[in-house]
């Protein structure tokens, strides 16, 4: 008798998209502006210097990395803020009471996270396009890595939102987990510049593969072979989806 609730899934997806579009100054303009400010600061700090070992100037090097950082942070923020706001405002009961399967809920949340991440990246790159030559070397790689990054971070945001009891908990995850991992993912430097020990540590950071692969899509250069990293990225994304599905299904920290 149980049937799929595609309308419910689509409604939840639209709700999540409308939610961030209703506060677009906060959810789109501000993140894009922040990324542009980073870019300008590093541009003037680093001048015309080249990135060691990669034969590219810092400005060009930074653009895809910052776009990926903005995507990751916004995908995370979209799901985590929605979940925690739903908890605080008591709105999550409507998700729990609705005839939606765990898969439908997860798909809707992650799809909305992908949309927000994409919109932020497109706005960021569009604003920069008159000032920097943004080449696209491998569109498929860009789309794949962008998609995986949004799914992975949207999923982590969903899990963090389910775990958190208040906004403070979310801020803790953002500041102590997400921000360091994105900063250490090679957004601002080539990991080849790091000491051997930190390079090894970075090998275990999935965000590094996302940033590096995404950059490869634009510049055709990177610290790793993006084709070899694809399985890591897809595998981590799938693991995130399955984790979200399972945790929602058992009502983890949502149902008493």
């Amino acid at each position, binding site marked *: 008798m149980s049937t799929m*609730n595609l*309308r419910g899934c689509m409604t939840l997806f639209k709700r999540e998209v409308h939610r961030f579009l209703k506060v677009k100054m906060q959810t789109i303009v501000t993140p894009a502006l922040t990324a542009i400010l980073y870019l300008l600061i590093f541009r003037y700090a680093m001048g015309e210097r080249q990135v060691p070992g990669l034969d590219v100037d810092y400005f060009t090097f930074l653009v895809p990395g910052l776009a990926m950082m903005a995507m990751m942070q916004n995908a995370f923020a979209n799901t985590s803020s929605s979940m925690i706001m739903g908890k605080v*405002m008591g709105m999550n*009961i*409507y998700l729990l009471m609705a005839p939606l399967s765990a898969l439908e809920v997860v798909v809707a949340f992650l799809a909305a996270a992908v949309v927000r991440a994409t919109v932020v990246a497109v706005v960021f790159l569009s604003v920069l396009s008159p000032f920097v030559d943004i080449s696209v070397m491998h569109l498929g790689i860009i789309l794949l890595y962008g998609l995986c990054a949004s799914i992975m971070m949207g999923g982590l945001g969903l899990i963090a939102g389910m775990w958190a009891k208040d906004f403070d908990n979310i801020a803790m995850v953002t500041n102590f987990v997400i921000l360091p991992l994105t900063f250490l993912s090679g957004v601002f430097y080539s990991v080849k510049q790091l000491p051997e020990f930190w390079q090894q540590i970075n090998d275990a950071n999935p965000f590094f593969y996302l940033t590096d692969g995404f950059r490869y899509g634009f510049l055709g250069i990177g610290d790793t072979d993006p084709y070899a990293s694809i399985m890591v990225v897809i595998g981590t994304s799938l693991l995130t989806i399955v984790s979200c599905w399972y945790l929602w299904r058992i009502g983890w920290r949502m149902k008493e």
Partner: protein
Amino acid sequence: MSALEIKGLNKVYSNGNVALHDVSLSVPKGSFFALLGPNGAGKSTLINILADTVLATGGSARLFDQDLFAERNWCKRQIGVVPQEVAFDPFFTPREVLAITSGLFGSKPDDAWIDHLLDRLELTAHVGKNTRQLSGGMRRRLLVAQALVHKPKLVILDEPTAGVDVELRRRLWGFMRELNAAGTTILLTTHYLDEAEELCDHVAIIDQGKVVTAQPMADLMQQVASSYLWMNYDKPLSLSEADTLALADFKPRVSDTGVCLQLGKLENGQSTFHTAYEAAVARFGPPQDAGVRSEDLEDVFLRLTKKEIRETT
């Protein structure tokens, strides 16, 4: 046929608190069913289990003859819940909230029905406002509209009139009566017992996670509710041993102003009014004033729940 049949439902929270203990209930299809109990009795836990926001630790339930736990999503489409806590989505207008809720339940938003709900719940004038701009009472009415927007067959109202003014409360109940008359089963929890008595045709009282009684309202009032003869002497009375013995059949209670006697029925079905009155006059003389007072649901509720507390402590 029952709209809802609950058997042996249990809920033990992770802190060991037993919220529901072997609860069994039958809510007849088309009934207006009052679920009453003191604070912490387990009413909201029961409702939350039905709404799937709390997980049961044992027992079974059938909704319109389908297994509630096995056919969760089908059953969810049949239920509309007005939660006790006011919850609102600060990003949307009432109309958007209703369209979203309808969609989440898998129904295409029915604009005519949404307009009707907004009208009946007196939200039409506020339809373009953000929910943040609504007053507490308006938000609560919006919750009622959200519960009804997908046209459920069972509506669960968890204290829906808290914070709603008297006039609106009357109109809300009028609307609920109409829905009930049209075949919607309504399960209501409220602390306004006079409203429950007036509206509901069935009642269950739970206390400390257990069902104290569950039956048609009329049967409960007939079987449990008593009538009292009060006699005013304008002075405190005390009962001597002889008084207590003479009035034992009427369970006399003295007060600062007189005495109160519980009335019953004689074998021929007549009230014991005359016997009680004459017995009291024989002991204390004619009163200055006297009258009969029948117990209402609140009296019955207090009596039953206090009894239950005594039995378990």
